[in-house]
């Protein structure tokens, strides 16, 4: 199972890198989304996919999934939510101000003199 997950995560990273190397800002943000999905799945996988029951205390259950990676993912998810929301608004704002979503046209600023 870990083996398949490794391939899926590798594919996500590949797609993320491809999208982040493109010129359109929205594609780049989609790439960062895929990158964080890959990273979160990686934490889950590297924590081990063993354990038959969810990590909730219940009678008669002995074999729990590792609770620690799930807590780490939950933290990482809300953090990347916050950053992505900020990044999306920034992209919207810079589309309004700079009239482009092409990152290669976003050079320096107005006081460029050399």
């Amino acid at each position: 199972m870990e083996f398949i997950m490794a391939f899926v995560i590798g594919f996500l990273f590949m797609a993320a890198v491809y999208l982040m190397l493109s010129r359109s800002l929205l594609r780049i943000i989609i790439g960062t989304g895929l990158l964080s999905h890959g990273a979160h799945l990686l934490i889950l996988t590297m924590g081990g996919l063993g354990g038959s029951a969810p990590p909730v205390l219940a009678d008669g259950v002995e074999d729990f999934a590792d609770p620690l990676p799930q807590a780490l993912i939950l933290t990482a998810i809300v953090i990347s939510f916050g950053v992505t929301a900020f990044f999306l608004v920034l992209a919207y704002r810079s589309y309004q101000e700079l009239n482009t979503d092409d990152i290669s046209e976003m050079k320096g600023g107005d006081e460029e003199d050399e």
Partner: protein
Amino acid sequence: MNNFVLLPIIIPFFFGMVLMFGQKSLRFQRGGAMLGLILAFASAVSLLFKVKEDGVQKLTFGGWPEPFGITMVSDMVSALLVTTTLLLAIFIVWYSFNSIGTAREQFYYYPAIMMIITGVNGAFTTGDIFNMFVFFEVLLMASYVLIVLGGTRAQLAGSIKYILINVISSALFVIAIAYLYAVIGSLNMADISVKIAEINQPAIITVIAVLFLMVFGLKAAIFPLYFWLPTSYAAAPPPVLALFGALLTKVGVYAIMRTYTLFFIHDTAYTHELLLWLSVFTILAGCIGALAYFDIKQIIIYNIVIAVGVILFGVAQMNETGLQGAMFYLIHDMIIKAALFMLVGIIVYKTGTTNLRKMGGLMKSSPTLGWFYLIAAFGLAGIPPLSGFVGKLLIAKGGFEAGNMWSSLFVLATSLLVLLSVIRIFIYAFWGEEKPVQPILTKAETTKLFIPTAIVILLSIAYGVGAEYLTPFMSDAGKLLADPSIYVDAVLKGE
């Protein structure tokens, strides 16, 4: 149990929350920010002396036994860095009063500063690797706000690159932690150190070490990962730039220092050799940049890159002298970079340009500024009585002790290029004929900016002249970095 460790983190956090209310009242915003920083600084100083007296202080949340809860550890390294951070923040906030502009001040500028200080202090103090990731995100999120606040075109373009690079490096940090967790099964830094020693650092740990170097190298701007720094930092307004230049890359440097002296110490022939060469190339790349530009902001920004290389060169030696020198130089560099960016800000506010070719003759209109700039420039280059000297001396000495003669000579030789790059600013901006200027701020306003700047420069002089007084602190820090068992015993076994 010692809640004292938390005060330098909690106080800025608390004041940051309070300052989110009453955003229109300038007096409340400024007074609150100043009061919070001074209280936090007082607590940091007393913590520093407590660490000096009683050794490493730690606090595990919720009273859990050691590897299971989140531990905050204040040793000499982190106590010194936290104290310096808060000290510089006080002067940078003071500098902001007259330079950042009321529109920004009324739009959550001070809360963002308090949050960035919370994140930086937390990252310096934490003893848990995932908690360090969280504190990195706290300081990065606040830095995104600060770099884009105001929303000029240059800021928008610069901050998009800054955020993108940090999103990628944060994802890499998560990936690196996931790999480390899969191998070690622990997140507590002291516990990780013990367990890596038990399995005697197999090859996979060395791979993770290089991955950590990439992650923190992206934050700290080492070669070849420094490319984002000049464009994005140039976008920030002067007080924000002073804050970033003094603190942000230093958090990455601290993280490399910590992981490479606590975790990855069993295969130094590979990891520390890599660090050594990367730091040499970092210095070289920084020197090329610093000499190539005629833009005063860019010259000082490339000097950040050089300093990062010098500090990491000290870390790569892995002997007590080199590590002590790295600590000396790290604190020196935080102070002097804050001072230089504040000075550069004043020059920009006076002349209305960052282009050296359009300046000249400032010595006639503002001689005090000129002489203070010259002192700061000499301090940066490490002329003996001033602050950069002791650190670089010890770093070079550590290099010779470790048998890296040529690279140590290289580090010493590049001081000349550093001096040349900052003296060029002095010659072009202060000497020569007076050129027409379009001041951004009036003369009275720039004079107000000069007071905090002058105090920071006087602090850097005191740091150089009073090195004798600081040596016991620094040698404690050097010992702790050179011998990880002090840290590990303090965290896992208690006092």
